[in-house]
């Protein structure tokens, strides 16, 4: 029994890692822009589709090019649409980003069709590792390592670079940052692009595991919102901890109560919010009070 529990734990950590990547972009965008981005899932979808197309031309470098392309599209979306929502009611941004999600999904369907697209992991990552009682596939292990690398790089970027400091300051007091002579609108465009690119990375990593379809974001965006709610809106560390917890809870529920596997993350969220309404590491944000 111990072997299967440890393997389930490993599987849950990988799934949780993917949720973290989607949720972290969502959390950064909310923290800095104040926008609850319902269109975030479609950037995950675009990451998978771009990887599929770019792979045909560039081979495996497509896994790097795809998130960059997704980030660029995110920046265009911010300049054309999202930046008009900053001083509007939250309800308007919800409706507009939801409409954007529908538009992008319909466009994907128009370009690539409704049927699933085949895409496999690279041959050198096929096969499984068995370490004592733990079984994990090489590809999932690579996904986990990539997730950790992306999160560490992002943390270093936010904590130890001048740009990261501007972002953190801007999230707390955008007016003051503007008075210091920093072009905040330009910074926000980059932030939105960064959030979308991270979601694109999750899409690329999920492409060999999930079926690539125009509606694949549906399976990703709800867990991402759950992760953000549990971790605390705008909290980097909260999203990481919550994502891994959600992955593990899902995997363990499948082991012991499979019928409830779809619902358990929501029950878990409800319990967590009852205990701590702002989420695990959620703080009081003056801007949104």
């Amino acid at each position, binding site marked *: 029994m111990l072997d299967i529990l440890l393997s389930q734990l490993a599987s849950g950590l990988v799934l949780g890692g993917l949720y973290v990547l989607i949720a972290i972009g969502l959390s950064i965008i909310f923290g800095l822009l104040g926008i609850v981005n319902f269109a975030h899932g479609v950037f995950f979808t675009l990451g998978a589709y771009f990887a599929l197309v770019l792979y045909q031309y560039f081979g495996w470098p497509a896994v790097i090019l795809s998130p960059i392309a997704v980030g660029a599209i995110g920046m265009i979306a911010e300049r054309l649409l999202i930046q008009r929502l900053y001083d509007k009611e939250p309800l308007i941004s919800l409706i507009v980003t939801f409409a954007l999600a529908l538009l992008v999904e319909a466009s994907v369907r128009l370009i690539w069709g409704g049927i699933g697209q085949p895409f496999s*992991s690279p041959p050198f990552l096929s096969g499984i590792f068995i370490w004592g009682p733990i079984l994990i596939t090489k590809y999932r292990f690579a996904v986990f390592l990539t997730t950790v690398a992306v999160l560490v790089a992002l943390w270093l970027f936010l904590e130890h670079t001048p740009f990261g400091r501007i972002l953190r300051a801007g999230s707390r007091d955008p007016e003051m940052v503007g008075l210091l002579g920093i072009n905040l609108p330009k910074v926000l465009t980059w932030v939105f692009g960064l959030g979308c690119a991270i979601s694109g990375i999750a899409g690329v990593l999920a492409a*060999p595991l999930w*079926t690539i379809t125009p509606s694949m974001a549906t399976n990703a965006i709800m867990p991402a919102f759950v992760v953000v709610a549990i971790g605390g809106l705008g909290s980097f560390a909260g999203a990481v901890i919550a994502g891994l917890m959600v992955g593990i809870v899902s995997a363990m529920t499948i082991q012991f109560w499979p019928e409830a596997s779809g619902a358990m993350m929501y029950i878990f969220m409800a319990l967590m919010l009852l205990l701590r309404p702002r989420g695990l590491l959620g703080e009081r944000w003056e801007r949104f009070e």
Partner: protein
Amino acid sequence: MTVTTPGLVLPRRKLLMGASALAVAPLAAPHIARAADPIRIGVLLAKTGGIAAQTEYLANGTFLALEERKNMLMGQPAELVWLDEPSPQAATQNMQKLVQENKVCAILGGSLSSNALAEEALAKDLKIPFVCDNAAATDITGKNCNRYTFRLNTPVAVQQAMLSPFAAKFGKKWYHITSSYAFGQDILKSSRENLKAIGGTEVGVDEVPLNTPDYSSFILKIRAAKPDVVVGGLAAGDLSTFLKQWNELGMKGKIPFVEIAIGDTDIWAVGPEAADGIFTKLWWYNNPNNPPEEKAFAAEYLKKHGKPAADKAWMGWITAKSLFDTLDAVKSTDAMKIVEGLEAWKFSAGQTAYSYRKFDHQMLVRNLAVQVKPKITDKWDYFDVKAVLPENPADVDKVFGTEAEIGCKMG
């Protein structure tokens, strides 16, 4: 007082009566469509969600069936009105809209069993012929049957009975992994009955929520249970995702996987490296035994869409064809005349003929048992046909169950 015109003298009362009679004439014969109005047929197929990959092909086949007739039915222009079926509730609302606002004379569709079960109940209330092209839940033409509902897809229980001997060849320890909605629950129930009949053991069962993105935890459980064979009941995108992860976890070729009613689009989405399993399906574009009319359809589809006709395209085409043939034969949009026409419809398909059984309105079609090729060289051609079921064409009626076994009471 009379209205007088040169050469014509009519009492005013008679004139008014004549005018009134002319005005109400169309009401006296409501089912004879006026020349100016096109004949409208409703289409209820999901436009989004996991099943949309299949419904795209169902719709393509349906529209092609009308285009083959130059968009004419009963000598009049005809059109298809396609509304979405995102959920059973929204599907029935759209069905009502098709009948009451769009004035359709019949409806094609029913992409998911849960939708089709709700739609067929409403078809009965609205007294509108409903020809279901995809849903396979046994009850559609079983205990929930009604006079207005016809169905193409072979019921789950029948397909499962056809597939079970193939599963039993691998052993008597079965593991079930099925979706937790009507289609999957139906498969689980039928498969358990078949397993019990051969004295087998269920070594594990997982009822999986729809749109599950990660199956690795389920696959780890299957691996630990060491079954002789896994009997699946996952639909569309869920099946594709499962098979991808089945291969990723090194299970392809280790434990056999069998499932009924695979769609070509499901396996195309898996990709040649990961595809695996034995399945039942209704039709295959590359089957040399397809009758000439189906071969012509497959060629026309390829010409129009640049890719082979998936089984779902054929399913859309043949159900639409059955309805369009019927309308041309009965030359009426009266619901009961269409129902009677569909009951009499026949299509010659080589050794057998397709037709709807009168007592349950189930189309009788032989199924194919197919296995994924060991090496796939053509990105569309994944299967070897292992058998046509039932092997004796004369057994078709028996395999689909007798009137007493089916439990359909049309009333």
